[in-house]
């Protein structure tokens, strides 16, 4: 079994090499590195705009006014408006915005947050806590918060914007690469009819598919190592990064195999492969606009994947997201691989 598997892998590597798969992957990785390092600016943050209206006129209105004025002065995304309706109107036109109205209830200040509706609970909670914190320290003046960074060297408070794009590239290219590339490989072999010759040998379908997925993993590793090293050097958790890329590649490749099994040529399947790629790319919006994370985005496996990759490239100590993502993708990979084996058995029997 292992002899057959390694024989298949060797054949697939040679075939992939002679079909310029390796060259294409290296070229794309270098292009992305070039874009990240030389085209995208280091500072270009996409934060939600915050629109506030101070309706409260009680005894603490001066303190509140100071807090908000200072925030507005130090953050370009905080803006004062003149009414609650104005906030709602602005928010309807700009989905990357939230609103805040400070009004009086029983002569005490009360903060009303106006959300778009698709922000996740974590974002809402963080915002409320930060507001409470700020007000408490202003009113009482006795709250001091100290933050101790246990792993100071790994903590990166501000990731340059250009480098922060790298996790998206890694989630899209090396990890999801298999979705498109494996289909191209399969159709090439379908065209040659070699799968028929394989089918009348003692070789098994799982070995055949595993070998194709192995090639995709190797290509994913090459792309990951080149791009990560040229962007962040040695400052990444390479072991976990490669594990994430591996399980992600298995899932995407197995999915590509399943889609390819329903069609006779690449042009027939391309619509579905592109549709799957687009669907899996949607969570990238939440990467840049974290406040936009509705349920239909969070259920997509690429949503945690991008954050797990970011954690592996820019470690902050939150290893939980890495392990949970690896576990999720391991389960998804096993399921999709089993489905791919069934799809190929059915497809070969049908042909």
């Amino acid at each position, binding site marked *: 079994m292992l*002899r*057959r598997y*390694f*024989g*298949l892998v*060797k*054949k697939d590597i*040679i*075939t992939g090499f*002679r*079909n310029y798969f390796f060259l294409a992957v290296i070229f794309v990785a270098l292009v992305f590195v070039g874009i990240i390092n030389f085209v995208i600016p280091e500072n270009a943050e996409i934060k939600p705009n915050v629109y506030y209206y101070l309706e409260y006129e009680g005894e603490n209105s001066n303190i509140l006014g100071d807090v908000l004025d200072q925030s507005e002065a130090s953050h370009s995304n905080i803006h004062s408006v003149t009414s609650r309706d104005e906030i709602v109107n602005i928010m309807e036109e700009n989905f990357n915005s939230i609103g805040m109205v400070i009004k009086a209830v029983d002569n005490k200040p009360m903060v009303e947050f106006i959300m778009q509706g698709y922000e996740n609970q974590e974002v809402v909670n963080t915002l409320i806590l930060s507001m409470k914190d700020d007000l408490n320290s202003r009113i009482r003046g006795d709250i001091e918060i100290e933050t101790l960074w246990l792993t100071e060297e790994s903590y990166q408070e501000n990731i340059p914007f250009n480098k922060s794009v790298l996790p998206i590239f890694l989630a899209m290219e090396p990890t999801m690469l298999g979705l498109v590339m494996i289909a191209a490989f399969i159709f090439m*072999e379908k065209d*040659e*009819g*070699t799968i*028929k*010759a*394989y*089918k*009348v*040998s*003692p*070789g098994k379908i799982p070995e055949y598919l595993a070998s194709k997925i192995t090639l995709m993993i190797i290509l994913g590793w090459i792309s990951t190592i080149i791009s990560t090293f040229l962007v962040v050097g040695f400052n990444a958790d390479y072991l976990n990064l490669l594990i994430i890329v591996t399980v992600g590649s298995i899932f995407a490749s197995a999915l590509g195999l399943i889609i390819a099994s329903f069609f006779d040529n690449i042009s027939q399947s391309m619509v579905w492969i592109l549709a799957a790629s687009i669907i899996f790319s949607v969570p990238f919006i939440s990467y840049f606009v974290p406040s936009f994370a509705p349920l239909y985005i969070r259920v997509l496996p690429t949503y945690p994947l991008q954050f797990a990759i970011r954690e592996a490239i820019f470690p902050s100590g939150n290893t939980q997201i890495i392990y949970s993502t690896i576990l999720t993708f391991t389960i998804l990979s096993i399921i999709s691989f089993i489905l791919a084996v069934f799809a190929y058995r059915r497809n*070969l*029997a049908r*042909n």
Partner: protein
Amino acid sequence: MINVKNLYHSYTNDENYAVEDISFKIEQGEVFGFLGPSGAGKSTTQQILIGLLALQQGEASIGGYDIKKPKEELFNLIGVSFEHPNVYKKLSGLENLEFYKKMFSVETEDSMKLLRMVGLESAANKKAGGYSKGMLQRLVFARSMINNPKIWFLDEPTSGLDPNTASEIKKIIRKKNDEGTTIFLTTHNMYIADELCDRIAFINEGKIELIDSPRNLKLKYGEKLVKIEYKENEKIKKESLSMINDEDKKKLNKLINEGKIETMHSQEATLEEIFIKVTGRGLK
């Protein structure tokens, strides 16, 4: 070695059968030919036997292994030479064989030896994508011998080959058969079937019309003819005369006695003529 009983197959999963009630037995060391025109059901039967098509109805076993649940041992036992070349175009001829060799868990042949046998030694390291159709056909034929098959499925093995190469391929087939290999030969070429097969099955519209040896078929269905050229009124005339028909016999005697015959050849019926007689259609 091969036992097929009441085999049916429908591509549309209904009663529109591509093969219908096919039954035959092939003994060890026999060369069994499946002769029929395109679309008769030859390839469907072979594809069911080698596991490329599902066995829907009926029973079939190869070397004692039930093909309904084909095991690894079954595929170690068989070799398949496909009609349409299906090799990895980006690999060389040698790489193709070396790869295929690793798929088997039985003793395998030396790849270079096989390439030499089919005359591809000098092109061993050339990418198969650059091979001519005939070279690809020979590569597929060589590949089918890599595991020293005990049962060898050959689908149109000489199709697209020049007469010299075809003759070499036929020699290899005979040699393998002499060594004890059982051969299932699918073809619409009556000459190769006549030359190589111990028994022949005529298949037409999915059904086996008859099974017999080429000699018996000729004796049973053929007509003994003599083809002659003779001189009459200073002109050369050609005629085929039956050796059974009294009129023809008298005419032949007369021509011999008068010394008018220029050339004379005995002529037996071809398998194609017999096929037409049995099925009412040609082999093309």
